[in-house]
């Protein structure tokens, strides 16, 4: 019988005490696992969300706010920029540096079952030309559709939805939905869009969004600039903006025909969900909230960022989403993670002290067993090792159960976290830091087991046998 087996049997013999001390260790380790894995996933996911393009260009204001609203569909959108500015990337001075520019119009939402999802008005290029992430070997991964297809540019009221939206709302291809004006659930309902595609899960915040054809979005009530307000594109007060993002604009939906008539541009046409021909909003009456810009190279991206941000007359700012994410993680997430990690490690230390107390308190009752083993030929070192092994077994078994519990907890929480934040938690994802846990627990157990082991070492055999 090996020393490990003897230690294991001793543990089994004191089943209740062993289970309780092991469980306390398991809970502590589970907490550590949750902190480590969740941080690792959040860190990676946050970085992954902002892949596929170099810059986000939007109205001047908080760079972080722009990243949060554009990439993560959180926070309020910044003040919009004119459509003409977007055209600088497609046919203007920035076009030579730009590979793909995808406009975003934000500000609408869709609510179902107490959850509100953002509606992003954009062009089909988002799904056709942007790769949302890369594989480990660097191969880019583009958007694919679980069901249906991308919306077409001439089908003004087509939309596609993210996987989480589909799961949570039950919406599917062929269904229609009415976006709500504003990002709260209590705004006015807009005209309906038809869902033509459901995206495969991407593990990004886009799983939680609905993507509508921008052409249709512009035709919705309150989304167009009045012709007479074309020159009124200077920035309003921040307070006004926060109070009502689109409130200063004139509701134009009923008067689109008249606005088209007064415009110099040749009208473009598309179709609504009834198949009827409708005219697009003149570009002069359009704005965009932000633009995702994929440059021809990293160097081009650096140049473009400089050109935009150093221009004192620019109405926009360019932000590298990755640098903002790094800043976000470094400023907020990492310190919180550190605090949580310290707290959970304290829980593990308390559990380890529990093991010490449990074994040390039992030394009196087991001194006879130790003496018998000594009488059977066990050396002092042998009984010391057996006691140490018991501490290590308790700690490691508790630790292993804790690792399993931690991952199970992550698995249980995953659907809720994904539905609320778009961050996909994978219960089978292990972090390299977890590898340190078991050796660390062995060392910790050896430390807390040392005093009881020393007590075993010093057991007076003759006295204990009497």
């Amino acid at each position, binding site marked *: *019988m*090996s*020393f490990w087996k*003897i230690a294991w*049997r*001793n543990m*089994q*013999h004191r089943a209740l005490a062993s289970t309780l001390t092991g469980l306390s260790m398991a809970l502590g380790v589970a907490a550590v696992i949750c902190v480590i894995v969740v941080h690792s996933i959040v860190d990676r996911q946050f970085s992954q969300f902002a892949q596929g393009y170099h810059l986000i260009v939007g109205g001047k204001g908080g760079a972080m706010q722009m990243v949060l609203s554009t990439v993560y569909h959180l926070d309020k959108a910044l003040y919009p920029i004119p459509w003409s500015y977007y055209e600088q990337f497609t046919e203007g001075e920035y076009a030579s540096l730009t590979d793909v520019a995808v406009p975003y119009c934000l500000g609408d939402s869709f609510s179902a079952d107490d959850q509100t999802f953002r509606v992003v008005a954009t062009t089909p290029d988002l799904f056709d030309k942007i790769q949302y992430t890369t594989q480990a070997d660097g191969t880019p991964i583009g958007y694919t559709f679980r069901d249906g297809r991308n919306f077409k540019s001439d089908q003004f009221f087509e939309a596609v939805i993210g996987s989480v939206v589909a799961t949570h709302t039950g919406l599917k291809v062929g269904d229609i939905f009415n976006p709500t004006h504003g990002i709260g659930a209590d705004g006015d309902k807009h005209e309906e869009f038809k869902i033509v595609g459901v995206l495969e899960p991407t593990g990004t915040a886009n799983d939680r969004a609905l993507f509508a054809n921008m052409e249709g979005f512009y035709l919705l009530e309150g989304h167009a600039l009045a012709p007479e307000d074309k020159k009124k594109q200077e920035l309003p007060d921040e307070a006004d903006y926060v109070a009502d993002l689109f409130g200063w604009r004139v509701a134009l939906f009923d008067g689109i025909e008249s606005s088209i008539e007064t415009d110099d541009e040749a009208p473009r046409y598309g179709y609504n969900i009834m198949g009827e021909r409708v005219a697009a909003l003149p570009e002069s009456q359009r704005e965009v909230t932000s633009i995702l810009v994929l440059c021809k190279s990293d160097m081009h991206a650096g140049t473009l960022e400089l050109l935009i941000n150093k221009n004192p007359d620019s109405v926009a700012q360019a932000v590298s989403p990755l640098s903002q994410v790094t800043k976000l993680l470094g400023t907020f997430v990492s310190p919180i993670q550190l605090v949580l990690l310290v707290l959970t490690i304290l829980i593990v230390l308390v559990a380890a002290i529990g093991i010490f107390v449990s074994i040390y308190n039992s030394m009196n009752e087991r001194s*006879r*067993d130790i003496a*018998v*083993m*000594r*009488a*059977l*030929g*066990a*050396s*002092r*070192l*042998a009984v010391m090792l057996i006691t140490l092994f018991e501490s290590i077994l308790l700690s490691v078994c508790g630790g292993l159960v804790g690792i399993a519990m931690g991952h199970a907890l992550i698995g249980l929480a995953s659907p809720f976290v994904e539905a609320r934040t778009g961050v996909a938690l994978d219960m089978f994802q292990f972090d390299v830091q977890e590898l340190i846990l078991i050796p660390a627990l062995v060392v910790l157990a050896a430390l807390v087991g040392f005093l009881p082991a020393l007590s075993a070492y010093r057991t007076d*055999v*003759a006295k204990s*046998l*009497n």
Partner: protein
Amino acid sequence: MLHVEKVRKSYREPSGEELRILDIPEFRLATGEQVVLRGRSGCGKTTLLNSIAGLTTVDAGAIRIRDVDITRLPEAGRDRFRARHIGYVFQTFNLLAAFTALENVMLGMTFTGQRRDPKRAAELLEKVGLSHRLHHKPQALSVGEQQRVAVARALANKPLLLLADEPTANIDPAHQQQVIDLLREACLSESVAMLLVTHASEVSDQFERVEYLEQINRVAAA
């Protein structure tokens, strides 16, 4: 086989005074011999057994078992020697409650540094009539069965010498004889010398050689 020579052993009392327990000029035991050691309570019987087993060190003298003077061995050496060559049966059996009968016997083999032999452990339990109780824990065994396991455990490593410290003291008279018979037969069949401490004359009367500690220990005699 066992030669105790000029052994002296004292304990220091809390008052600081030295209390001599053993002063034995000579005591011998031949290979396979079965000897009863008697003496009044507190005269040093258990101290002598512990000294022979190497559990207690002596102040002077030599204790030779097969020409190995265990008093000259370091503690680890004494532990190893005890594991390989000495079996010990206690008054209260001292089976480990966490282990089955078979494991208790195997435990006797654990500390020898040699290969453990589960087959021999099972055979020994069979020999003491417990082949049907191999996987029972001590609390599921009767007092008599527990003592039989203790005997099997003491013989697990084919020792040269078996020390039995009042092995029948806690057993009812009906089982006493069974245990004595078992010890004698087992030692005989394994050619193991036995030194048995007892107060019971009905036990000692069955042995050819009975030693009184008062006669071999000068301290006890005084």
